[in-house]
């Protein structure tokens, strides 16, 4: 199993989640994070008109643990739904997961996903 971690634009979240659901991937979780990358930030305006660049921007981190064979499909779905083509679209990282457990039943392995 793998954990697919996608850092995406907040405004794309609902599309990504919907796209995943359409393809049968229901289980996932998301968190608000703040990120920096090549996108160099938004110029904020202070009350004295001083514009300072906030280079840490709000992003959403979406995590979804999937079977090995689903990994690329999930990545493709996310990329398709999250892409705007502008700097700041985000990254996807894949991490190996050695086991999964469903708390409700205690089942382990891929069946727990």
């Amino acid at each position, binding site marked *: 199993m793998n954990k697919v971690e996608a850092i995406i634009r907040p405004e794309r979240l609902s599309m990504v989640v919907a796209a995943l659901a359409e393809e049968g991937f229901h289980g996932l979780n998301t968190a608000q994070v703040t990120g920096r990358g090549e996108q160099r930030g938004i110029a904020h305006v*202070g009350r004295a*008109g001083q514009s300072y660049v906030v280079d840490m921007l709000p992003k959403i981190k979406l995590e979804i643990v999937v079977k090995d064979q689903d990994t690329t499909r999930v990545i493709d779905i996310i990329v398709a739904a999250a892409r705007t083509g502008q700097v700041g679209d985000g990254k996807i990282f894949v991490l190996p997961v050695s086991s999964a457990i469903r708390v409700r039943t205690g089942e382990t392995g891929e069946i727990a996903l």
Partner: protein
Amino acid sequence: MDTGDTAWVLAASALVLLMTPGLAFFYGGLVGRTNALATIMHSFVTIALISVVWVLWGYTLAFGPDKGHFIGGLEWFGLRDVGMEPGDYSATLPHNIFMAFQMMFAIITPALITGAMVGRIKFKTFLVFIVLWSTIVYAPLAHWVWGLGGWLGDLSSLGMSGLEGKALDFAGGTVVHISSGVSALAAATVLGRRKSIATEPEIPHNIPFVVLGAGLLWFGWFGFNAGSALGANGAAANAFVTTNTAAAMAALSWMTMSWWRGGAPSVVGAASGAVAGLVAITPAAGFVTPAAAIIIGFVAGVLCYFATQFRAKLKVDDALDVWAVHGVGGTWGALATGLFAVASIGGIDGLFAGNPGQVVNQLIAIGVTWIWAFGWTFVLLKVLDKVMGLRVAEGDEAVGLDASQHGEPAYTL
């Protein structure tokens, strides 16, 4: 005694009380999350502290029987002789409501200074400072301008040739705003800068709170200015209108400046502008026309905007720009009163109505207030620094005053 006048001043006193919680939110929203609650507390505890000080000795020092045009005597200590009958200050009001109305001014003035102390002052020292400042700085100033016998209220009492008439200050341009704004500058200087300010810009943690605060301040300011007519009449109504007009115009002009020079119409800028306009019209509200209020407000927004930028260059960590808004705005307002006053509104003409002498009187009051407030605040804080220490430990500053001074995080969301 007049029940209508009394009804209005009762309501106005309540309105002015509400300004300080309003200020708590205006200031609290502007700071970072880890100092939000401590900043709010600075205003809240000032209400409690000064309410007691005023009843005990503040009122009598400021408004009690005059001693040498300089200070009130202690005859009214603990409100002795301040009763339910009209006093010397108004024939149509119970003396005690005049006292209460004035109390609200005494509360908000030191609360304003707290904007310069954000994120680093020791709470205990803060409490002592507020009590001393109210007693030593505020009470005499209030006496000079508004106390019966005070020298700024009757310049001829100085016996200097050429000086006559009075310095006009309808609702506290010098007493409240210049004094707090200039004291903030002194306080920021003595306290030194926050450690973090060099590495990260401070981003307001809750701008809706800033707008809430500005809204409550605007609302309460009707009590502040229109209440200062001490009656329910055309003069109060005129102060009401000029107050609203200047606030509105300054909100627009500050917002426009932030748009033009900063690239976007800042909401914090609009809220700050409204406050700047309210500050500037305060001394003038009962002396000028609504048309003049448009100009006073417009200039206030632009001027305080630039003062804020200038202050940033000074490297003085007056975190919430109390000096730029109240010091500079109050100075402009006190001056503008001398420029735009017309006798048909408040009984006295200013420069543009042909009375240049009034500008001189205003400048005297402005200069004296700057010196008095800056000097004393500087000295008081230097002494307190020696005696009790002014700043919290470095680690305490890093985690924020909410946790280190009060043991309470503002939110657990």
